[in-house]
């Protein structure tokens, strides 16, 4: 908590390029080196994020979606994590080669993150107002009472009723939905340009989920943030995202505008997922499941990682890794993307 942090890198340090591009992840690899082997969590992931855009990263457990977020935030534990290659450019500057303290200063005012489990992400021994205010004390060198005033303002912004009276309450005195609002207040405190939400509503009830997603959408609109929404919920993605990247075994296997992704999926995995979820607006539906399991990340099968579960797999799928390529308005990493698309 140094006072020198008052001199935050001035906003002019980071300017999105002319197209409004904030973040560019370029061919990122992440491995986890453990006593038992190397787990290849991310194997060449590239995407970018623009101002005011919501990009969903969809995937199941072990797909690498959370690791991607942690790599961008720079909160991976290294070791065991290793980033052998790739770049994460924020407004043109590579976060991975940036000096650590510069990167730390960017965390909060430039990029911030909210987590799935708000209870364990908040420190139970401090009042919530103190924790929200900490952002201001640390990054802006604000004094205690000003920081509290800012905390109240933010708590009002995220619609916590009676913010003034509750600013000195402790996390356990809030319900799950309210705690997630507090997390959001902390994340937007310093007006970040990029907000990463890692399963923000997974632990919440559906009515509360609707409230939180509405709040996020509203804040994003208001501040023109770039929002990365990490989730496994195809319903939530359909509701809020502009674009989505589908991850499988540490790769992006499909990437498309949201309507194309659902209406014209060009990857068998995406199609399989869509066939396998029950829908609220359908009755008498037959569910079909993708068989098998996602691969062990220490031994990803050669060729397309999805081939053992794919009902279309041919010999080429077992030998050649399909590149993410452009097929009719979207990207798909499948050798038979055209067939999937048109079939």
């Amino acid at each position, binding site marked *: 908590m140094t006072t020198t942090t008052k001199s935050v890198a001035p906003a002019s340090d980071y300017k999105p390029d002319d197209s409004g591009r904030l973040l560019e992840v370029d061919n990122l690899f992440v491995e986890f080196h*453990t*006593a*038992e*082997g190397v*787990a290849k969590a991310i194997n060449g992931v590239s995407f970018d994020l623009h101002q005011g855009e919501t990009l969903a990263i969809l995937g199941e457990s072990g797909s690498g979606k959370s690791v991607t977020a942690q790599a961008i935030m720079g909160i991976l*534990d290294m070791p*065991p994590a290793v980033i052998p290659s790739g770049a994460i450019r924020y407004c043109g500057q590579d976060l991975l080669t940036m000096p650590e303290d510069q990167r730390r200063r960017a965390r909060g005012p430039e990029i911030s993150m909210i987590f799935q489990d708000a209870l364990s992400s908040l420190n139970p021994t401090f009042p919530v107002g103190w924790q929200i205010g900490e952002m201001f004390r640390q990054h802006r060198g604000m004094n205690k009472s000003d920081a509290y005033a800012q905390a109240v303002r933010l708590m009002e912004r995220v619609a916590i009723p009676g913010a003034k009276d509750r600013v000195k309450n402790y996390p356990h005195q809030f319900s799950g939905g309210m705690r997630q609002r507090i997390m959001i207040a902390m994340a937007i405190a310093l007006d970040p340009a990029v907000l990463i939400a890692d399963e923000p509503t997974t632990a919440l009830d559906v009515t509360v989920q609707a409230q939180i997603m509405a709040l996020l959408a509203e804040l994003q609109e208001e501040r023109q943030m770039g929002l990365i929404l990490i989730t496994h919920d195809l319903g939530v993605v359909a509701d809020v995202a502009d674009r989505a990247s589908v991850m499988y075994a540490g790769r992006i296997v499909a990437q498309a505008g949201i309507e194309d992704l659902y209406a014209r999926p060009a990857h068998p995995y995406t199609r399989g997922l869509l066939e396998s979820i029950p829908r609220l607006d359908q009755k008498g539906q037959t569910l079909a499941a993708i068989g098998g399991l996602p691969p*062990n990340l*220490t031994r990803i099968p050669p060729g397309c990682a999805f081939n053992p579960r794919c009902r279309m797999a041919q010999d080429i799928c077992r030998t050649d890794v399909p590149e993410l390529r452009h097929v009719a308005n979207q990207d798909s990493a499948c050798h038979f993307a055209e067939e999937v698309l048109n079939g």
Partner: protein
Amino acid sequence: MTDSLAVSVQPTAGEDVGEARSLAQDAWRSLRKNKIFWISVTLITAFVLMAVWPSLFTRTDPTFGDINNVRDTPSGAHIFGTDGQGYDIFARTIYGARASIIVGILTSLTTLIVGGVVGIVAGFYGGWIDAVVSRITDIFFAIPLLLGGILFMASFPNNPQSTPYLVIVGKVVLTLTIFGWPSIARLMRSSVLQVKPNEYVLAARALGASPLRIIRSHILPNALAPAIVVSTINLGGFIVAEATLSFLGIGLTPPAISWGVAISDALVAVRTYPHILLFPSLFLSLAVLAFILLGDAVRDAFDPKSR
């Protein structure tokens, strides 16, 4: 995240296909690779051998006092030297292991059984049984082991010459058990409380399993590991407690041979002849260390998150 690594990455499965691997087997697998485990096992084996079969290590009679060679420094004839009575220190240290090891192992076992049963009853049945049992545990827990031990041992009629060795050892074990079980009971209670709400326990109840069956096949196997680990670590503590009691003259007393007795005797001339104190103390410390290391290694194997 680092701490979950050890649990998370299973040994590469290639050769394990179709093979049943229980958690205990996995623990053994990781134990086998642990150097500390092997060091402690070697030491403990040596001490147990000393306790069971001291003549394997020395041919010298520990009860033969060579009055001509009192307080000799280490030499070829007496590699650890001799003490104030002219006894060979090496032989007495070897023979002294027996008392320590017996007291340590027996006390650990009895505290594990008593504390385990009490903890399971309190944790499993809950309610007023738990309240009563837990308060009793707390009362015993509040009495310091050594203070209680001193008071309790002092209240026994003390006639070392006529009491058989095993009875004296038994008294020490009993004393240490009376004041040592509460820590195990509390631990056991909390691990039972942790296991009890698991859905596999509910599933067994839903099937109509009897309480005894639930305890035997679901609660006990899953709640026992921490108690075993702590018992192993406590074992070192009991050896120290025995030595302390003997040192104070209320545990084992001469002619019984024990490290505590030897340390007590050595204090008379500690400034001039420190070697008399050194060797029994060294062995005592090594034995305690060995058990604590073993406990740590076993805990790491069962619960890699604690690393």
